[in-house]
């Protein structure tokens, strides 16, 4: 079953057209990276797919059902969303925040899952700390753990929508996170749609790259077809060389 099928989406806020004629399909086990310059509509697309923004034209089907037909609680078991920025307004502990994703689990099961997830994300020692006192990168991983916890006990197809989920992380932490996401996609069949800024991260981990510009999808394909000097220059105005690595994916080197 196709996890996500968006057809000819159009989104207009006020007078500005944010998205135009956007179509995107995501299959089980696929890790899709959304790329594009600032203001291209990546976050808006993600919010639209999350049901947060009401689209004017087109249709969205999640797990074979029109998005408006889903009940919030039902959808929350199969689809989790990580926004670009989440501010925790009260002194909650990490454990309490991640536990918001626990549903249908007993407290010991939930705690076991939380400890495992925090450890996988390299923040195992932060479980009892107050989230507002954590650094930006730590908070980002706490939110990621919460989002993963939300789908952890679900079986069957699952969809993760992640908006720049590693923007505050150092390269090693970024590697930890994307390795975990890739593992979830390959071994558990998670579908992941992630807005990514780092072209090489996208190249290394994603199955498919989707390049956006000015509210439209410009290209949708493998890293080799998307990460191409001509296209990078056209979309980003980025002058770069692209090397084909022996590992099988290309690497982008911006030119000085």
């Amino acid at each position, binding site marked *: 079953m196709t996890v996500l099928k968006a057809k000819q989406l159009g989104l207009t806020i006020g007078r500005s057209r944010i998205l135009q004629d956007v179509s995107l399909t995501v299959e089980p086990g696929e890790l899709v990276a959304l790329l594009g310059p600032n203001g291209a509509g990546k976050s808006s697309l993600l*919010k639209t797919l*999350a*049901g*947060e923004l009401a689209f004017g034209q087109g249709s969205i089907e999640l797990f074979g059902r029109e998005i408006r037909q889903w009940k*919030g*609680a*039902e*959808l*929350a*078991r199969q*689809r*989790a*969303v990580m*926004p670009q920025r*989440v*501010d*925790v*307004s*009260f*002194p*909650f*502990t990490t454990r*309490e*925040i991640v536990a*918001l*994703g626990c*549903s249908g689990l007993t407290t010991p099961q939930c705690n076991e899952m939380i400890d495992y997830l925090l450890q996988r994300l390299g923040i195992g020692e932060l479980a*009892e*700390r*107050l989230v*507002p*006192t954590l650094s930006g990168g730590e908070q980002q991983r706490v*939110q990621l753990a919460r989002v993963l916890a*939300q789908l952890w006990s679900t079986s069957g197809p699952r969809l993760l929508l992640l908006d720049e989920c590693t923007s505050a992380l150092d390269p090693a932490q970024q590697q930890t996170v994307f390795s975990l996401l890739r593992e979830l996609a390959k071994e558990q069949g998670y579908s992941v749609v992630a807005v990514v800024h780092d072209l090489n991260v996208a190249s290394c981990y994603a199955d498919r790259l989707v390049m956006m510009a000015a509210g439209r999808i410009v290209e949708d394909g493998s890293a080799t077809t998307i990460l191409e000097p001509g296209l990078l220059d056209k979309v980003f105005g980025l002058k770069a060389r692209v090397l084909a690595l022996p590992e099988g994916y290309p690497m982008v080197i911006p030119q000085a």
Partner: protein
Amino acid sequence: MATDTAKRAPASLIFMVLAGLAVLAALFSLTNGAYPLGTSDVVNLLLEPEAAKPAAHMVFFDVRMPRLVLGFLTGAVLAVSGTLLQGLFRNPLADPGLIGVSGGAALAAVSVIVLGGSWLSDWTILTGRWALPLAAFVGSVLTTLVAWRVASRSGSIAVATLLLAGIAINAVAGALTGLLTFYADDSELRSLTFWSMGSLGHASWEDLQVAGPWMLLALLLAPVLAKPLDAFALGESVAGHLGFSVQWVKRATVVLSALGTGAAVAVTGLIGFVGLVVPHLLRQIVGAGHRVLIPASGLAGGVLLVAADSLARVVVAPAELPIGLMMSLLGGPFFLVLLMRMRIGA
């Protein structure tokens, strides 16, 4: 880097301490006043009411007991309403008083007192003995909605705007209440003063019959909102993604806090700071999770108001300070100190 591992007392211990404090506050309240009643008298009155002197019986069952129960319920409901609103607005400054809800409720109640015989006679006839609390309730719901509407921008609440809206609402409500005092005669004026300063002095079983059920309803239903309000701490959209019905949570929170605050204000007048200070303080002790915070706030609010009310009777005996004044006198400076000592902005 500081290691801020949350130091928290276990919930069961907190509840035991609060229950103990509640018993102490109740004893303090029952044994203080013009008529001498000691702890042993209280115990005897409770065990063998028929054996007591008629005067003691009257003072205990018709004066002090309703005052104790009303004080406890009012404190509880104000603190719980404060907790709910703070959770909803994601801000520790939200309070029924600060955002104008109590002011609106008081204005509505004052309107009924002054205009109940003239302009609002239809309302008084229609609602009978419920005229006052119902008006206070309607007033509190309307002001909440106004503050809400003014402060919401494309579905999210702008907190600074909300507080400013509260200031404006309080100013308007205060001005209108002032205007009403021009129309008021002497006896109405006395009731008006009572509203603006807040008092448990006239507590009776009749008051409790009118307001008690609403306060109890608000208190009993509030824990339902614990889980969704935890999610709201991450923002409305995240709460939605976690599967909570955001609109439902907002409406339920507003209705419950307006219900409780409206009923409380209807019989006690304006009592500030309970709804602000209690949840704020408890969050430092029990943490921010609403499952514990809501009932703990309720207990602590009840204890605080009963204790403050007993104190208000003692400090200037045989007269008594209005409890609303007392709370603002104690609560204001206390809150300032708390703000100065706070390390993180939560």
